[in-house]
């Protein structure tokens, strides 16, 4: 899932500037699951903004709404009528939701209330870890199900760097060395020889380096109306 983290209140206040009427828009999918931008967080943030703006002597009117998914037109379209009542929308969705709102409702500014952090999972309650970089050319099939693009600090494809020690990364002892994990998996399955083949330079053009990406599936497109 997409994991996000709320921006500091101070930064949000600065972004809101002189806005008097603010709609905090939560999202009911990924950011709800990671406790960053769902219905509950939207309500807490809205009341924090009301209190803070009042204390600072320029009270804002803050309402909140949460839609199931801010990244799909059908879920955000019903907001259209409400938006004219606000100076600004503060979205607690990921960066995709924020952009969807700006794209669909070009007459109102939607600001981000979260930092979209990574694609990952809750390793345990309260701890999320990155697992995927959406590089567009999945190599998990040759790395025993552990991604060195997302999990090796140097994105190495041919084994660990010299900084791997006692199973952890040189960057931070809280980061497990991805290549240690890959090695252990290869050992477990008795397939170490698969790691001895030289992996050629990666085709980064399928990643963000190739420019913004797009998928077109002709089989799924709806026929244009006459």
């Amino acid at each position, binding site marked *: 899932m997409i994991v996000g983290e709320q921006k500091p209140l101070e930064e949000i206040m600065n972004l809101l500037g002189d806005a008097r009427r603010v709609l905090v828009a939560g999202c009911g999918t990924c950011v709800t699951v990671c406790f960053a931008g769902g219905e509950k967080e939207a309500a807490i943030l809205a009341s924090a903004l009301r209190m803070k703006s009042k204390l600072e002597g320029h009270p804002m009117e803050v309402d909140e709404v949460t839609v199931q998914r801010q990244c799909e037109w059908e879920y955000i379209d019903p907001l259209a009528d409400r938006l004219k009542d606000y100076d600004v929308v503060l979205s607690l969705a990921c960066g995709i939701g924020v952009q969807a709102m700006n794209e669909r409702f070009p007459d109102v500014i939607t600001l981000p209330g979260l930092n979209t952090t990574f694609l990952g999972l809750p390793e345990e309650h309260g701890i999320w870890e990155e697992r995927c970089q959406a590089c567009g050319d999945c190599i998990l099939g040759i790395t025993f199900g552990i991604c060195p693009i997302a999990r090796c600090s140097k994105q190495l494809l041919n084994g660990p*760097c*010299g900084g791997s020690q006692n199973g952890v990364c040189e960057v931070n002892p809280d980061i497990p060395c991805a290549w240690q994990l890959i090695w252990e998996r290869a050992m477990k399955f008795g397939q170490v020889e698969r790691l001895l083949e*030289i992996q050629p330079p990666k085709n980064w053009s399928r990643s963000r380096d190739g420019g913004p990406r797009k998928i077109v599936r002709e089989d799924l497109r709806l026929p244009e109306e006459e």
Partner: protein
Amino acid sequence: MSEQTNGYKSGSNLEKLLRAGHFVVTAEIGPPQSADPEVIRRKARLLKGVVDATNITDNQTAIVRMSSIASAVLAMQEGVEPIVQMTCRDRNRLAMQSDLLGAYALGARNLLCLTGDHQSFGNHPTAKNVHDLDSIQFIRMVRDMRDEGRFQCGDEIKGVRPRFFIGAAENPFGDPFDFRPYRLMKKVAAGVDFIQTQIILDIPRFREFMKRVVDMGLHEKVYILAGIGPLKSAGAARYMRDKVPGMRVRDEYVERMEAAVAGIPKEDKKARKEAWEREGIRIAIEQIQEIREIPGVAGVHIMAIEWEEAVRPIVEGAGLLPRPQV
């Protein structure tokens, strides 16, 4: 191979000495964090005639310094053969190849292909890193430029090819330990000619690593230069033991450095420094003598970081002067 290199891959002094079976000595110069050429010239003069070639580090520990290629040219002007270090951290494959063409055109003949320390260690921790290639892909690219006359994309190099003697690093003390000899094997398969190891302060483990390397026959395919890092003080030894990722330092070295200043009052900083330096040099000499006897070791690489003055007494003390001429 070509006429212009007379049967050698690169024709560098380092390559010729290794091919002739000499026990080689290399050292390292760290470029300054300024545009002062005199720093390189001074360090080069300290090493001239003492070592066979000198590494020029590339923004080591991710701190911005004078370019390794520019510094290598300054070293050559002082009569010292450089080994240009290049990391995958700061350049993509276009910049790497472009710099390789330039370095060769300026006279560099030895290259050390490195992954690079993570930028979080250096003075620009908010920088974007590159790692377009890893060190093994890098080695293969340089080899193909030399032997196939092709750029990484497959296009032909029309005209002069960069013919480098290709080096890489290996850390016998990194984990997973069992993977290390295989990783060296991959570097050999990619086309590496020589290896310089991480600083060795755990000889038994290095011996074990070399045993595996020899059992795999890798020492016959690549020249292995053992890393020697003279200790400057007891504090430096403790720091390397406890703080530097990928290092292993046996307690005996820390204890010897601590004992070296026994009886010298803390206030007498000069005497303590001299005692430490004497002991650090003595340990390095003993290590060279011990490591020389380990099968498969073709030479030593002395990393006297910001202490180039130590190289001459170490090489001399180990009985490795004068350096052979080819």
